[in-house]
């Protein structure tokens, strides 16, 4: 019975990790402090009309930072034997991953919505449909990155190693995604470097939701990312090491 109540298992794992967050929602508010600062202290530098361009990028950046660090929450659970305990229950190994990622994605969507609403106070314009689409894309990206984050955390097991893996990968991904400034402003080599960064295409797609533009490359990128990310995550969680 490999799929023994996969949905129920996932829901239970989701509830277990969500409950402490609901009991202490302050952390969610702290989570939007950083994007709020970008919104208030960086956004105005872009001048009139900059909001439509900047806010979608900021949302992708939130997806990146919000879920890439998710793996940190797994490390105390590995150390205190929680993961081991759960792995001896008949609960599906896939649920152990997906339930956790689910929590991070729900929080990400809530935070992204709050940021979009806040951005509207500054002059960002979006219809309900655009917002829904924008949140959807952010959520799928969050699933991809969150799955990879948990898988890597499970493999490296040590905070300081995990932290250096993260900063070594997130910073270049973010800088080459054109979140803060258009990559087309730079020299040609830098622009081409950004073109091999799948995240840059996701940023473009997110922007095209709120502006005229094409989503094709971005959708392909995010589809590949989520497929690879979830497969990698599931494979790692299915393996014996925990």
């Amino acid at each position, binding site marked *: *019975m490999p799929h*023994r*109540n996969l949905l129920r*298992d996932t829901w*239970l794992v989701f*509830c*277990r990790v969500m*409950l*402490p967050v609901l009991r202490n929602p302050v952390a969610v508010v702290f989570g939007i402090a950083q994007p709020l600062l970008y919104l208030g202290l960086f956004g105005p530098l872009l001048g009139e009309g900059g909001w439509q361009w900047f806010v979608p990028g900021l949302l992708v950046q939130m997806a990146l930072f919000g879920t890439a660090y998710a793996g940190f929450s797994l490390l*105390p*659970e590995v*150390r*205190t*034997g*929680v993961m*081991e*305990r*759960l*792995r*001896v*229950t*008949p*609960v599906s190994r896939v649920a152990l991953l997906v339930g956790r990622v689910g929590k991070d994605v729900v929080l990400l969507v809530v935070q992204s919505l709050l940021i979009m609403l806040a951005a509207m106070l500054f002059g960002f314009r979006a219809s309900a449909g655009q917002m829904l689409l924008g949140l959807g894309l952010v959520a799928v990206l969050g699933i991809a990155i969150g799955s990879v984050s948990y898988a890597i955390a499970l493999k490296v097991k040590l905070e300081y190693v995990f932290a250096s893996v993260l900063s070594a990968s997130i910073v270049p991904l973010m800088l080459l995604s054109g979140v803060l400034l258009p990559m087309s402003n730079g020299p040609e080599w830098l622009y081409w470097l950004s073109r091999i960064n799948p995240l840059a295409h996701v940023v473009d797609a997110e922007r095209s939701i709120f502006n005229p533009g094409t989503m094709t490359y971005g959708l392909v990128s995010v589809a590949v990312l989520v497929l690879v990310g979830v497969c990698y995550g599931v494979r790692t969680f299915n393996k*014996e090491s*925990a």
Partner: protein
Amino acid sequence: MIEARGLARRFTTKTGPVDAVRGVDIDVAEGELVGFLGPNGAGKSTTLRMLTTLLQPTAGTATIAGHDLLKDPAGVRRNIGYVGQKGGGGLDQRVGDELEFQARFYGLAKHDARRKVADLLDRFDLTGLEKRGVVTLSGGQQRRLDIAMGMLHDPRLLFLDEPSTALDPQSRRNLWDHIRQLKADGTTVFLTTHYLDEADFLSDRLLVIDHGAIVGEGSPDDLKHRVSGDLVELGTAQAAVVASKFEDAVVDGEKVSFRIPNGDRALPGLLRDLDNIGVELHSVQVHRPTLDDVFLTMTGRSLREGSNAA
């Protein structure tokens, strides 16, 4: 309840393969409380992790609680409880929530889970702590919570890995009472320990493991019996005279010590004989062999040294 044959695990490390467990056979009958004794690094936890589906064996087969370990790990998981060495309560969780989720992970419906949780809180003296954070519990309370989490689905077989490590003497004693109660209620218990007194107090039967292989097996008394006899210590001014009467007697000043079988029964006659030949004694002591003596006889090493060194 457990039938393992040739169970082995080899780890590949940078310095070459390490055989943590070298093909062990383990048989545990229903209702038994079996202690798995050995120094740190002997292969106890690796064996336990294999028996509980956490680690894939590199060789061997096992049937656990009626299910094939390799072909039906899910079946094994449904029928066993496992309490790991490290505990297992989430640091950001409340006691009641952890128990309820654990019950539901085993497939219990919500109301059944709640009922079972209340029952186990009561059984393990945790009632009133449901709303407390797991981190606020004392060591003894945390350990009882861990065991309660392993019992929510009424497993027929419970694995305990080093249950009393890091507990103060009172909490240990209390924990032991709870473990004995589990056995009295019909649960088969398989526990690892490197504490002799724990193994001695709890187990019906002991398996002794060293360097990844089982080196001895039997009830604590059986094993102690294999050490030839009890240690008798006599204090007397005529130590040399006494020493000449017994094989392998050791003289230390006014003290003579030697081993005789069933020392407690042999002692009265022995004292009479010594009296008859005019030996005056000023002290008499009989020491039953300890499991440490057993371990020393079987492995040539003291268990205490082993556990201190690791």
